């Protein structure tokens, strides 16, 4: 049973890696180059799906935080923590790809436009979420503080989305795409979504394991220490 699960996990990650490789080939051979912006426009096919997945990860953190405040079950806290970590990672990718786009298209790495500013704030808010988790003592207290913060931090997500639509912004609010461009976007959305799901699930399983071990250690009084990378741990 356990080995079947391991095989499925490896198959899943290989599939995601294969899809990414296929999409890179698609980008080189099939996707047309946009006339006005040139090759730099192709960053969009990676940038947009990652941005959508960032919102999704933030939303999962929000829902799990509400769930924890409502039911006080550690499973919600573990899920909120897992998706927040992935959200930080995804948001970093959105910022990096967006900056490269900005340099290529507008000639600057960064400009304080509403969407860019709110995106940076989103990244910082979730970084603070992680710092907050590591600085609060006591499992229940940490979970409660993080859940309240997780709900508040999510308020920035609608601001990021609406900023380019409601306020004049250098960042495009919507882009018209040809059919081949739409297909490329869809092809990139699949592995990015799978990767996001895979990362959240892996982190969530790790968090569950840590929580269960912490609970066990509290009941049987034996501590738990994660092995260092060398594996040369003296048997106690």
């Amino acid at each position, binding site marked *: 049973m356990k080995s079947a699960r391991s095989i499925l996990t490896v198959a899943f*990650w290989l599939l995601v*890696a294969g899809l*990414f490789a296929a999409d*890179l080939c698609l980008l080189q051979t099939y996707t047309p180059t946009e006339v006005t912006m040139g*090759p*730099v426009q*192709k*960053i969009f096919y*990676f*940038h947009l799906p*990652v941005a959508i997945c960032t919102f999704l990860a933030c939303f999962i953190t929000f829902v799990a935080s509400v769930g924890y405040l409502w039911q006080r079950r550690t499973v919600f806290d573990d899920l909120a923590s897992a998706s927040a970590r*992935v959200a930080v*990672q*995804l948001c*970093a*990718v959105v910022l*990096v*790809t967006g900056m*490269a*786009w900005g*340099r*290529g298209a507008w000639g600057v790495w960064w400009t304080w436009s509403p969407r860019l500013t709110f995106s940076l704030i989103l990244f910082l808010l979730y970084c603070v979420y992680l710092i907050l988790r590591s600085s609060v003592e006591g499992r229940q207290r940490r979970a409660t503080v993080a859940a309240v913060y997780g709900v508040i931090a999510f308020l920035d997500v609608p601001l990021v989305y609406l900023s380019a639509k409601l306020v004049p912004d250098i960042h495009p609010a919507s882009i018209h795409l040809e059919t081949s461009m739409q297909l490329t976007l869809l092809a990139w959305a699949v592995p990015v979504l799978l*990767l996001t799901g*895979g*990362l959240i699930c*892996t*982190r969530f*399983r*790790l968090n569950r*394991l*840590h929580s269960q*071990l912490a609970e066990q250690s509290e009941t049987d009084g*034996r501590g*738990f*220490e*994660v*092995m260092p*990378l060398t*594996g040369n*741990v003296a*048997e*106690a």
Partner: protein
Amino acid sequence: MFYLRFAYAAGLLLLWGYAAMLWLESYRVHQSVARRNRMAETSGEKS
């Protein structure tokens, strides 16, 4: 073209680097759990 390559390389490196870090941590935690279980079994046998 440089900015296009830079964006994809940096983005994919960030995502897959994080995935690799997670696998490594997962491996270490599972090894530690196995060690903990072995120690629990050994101490149970001795008593």
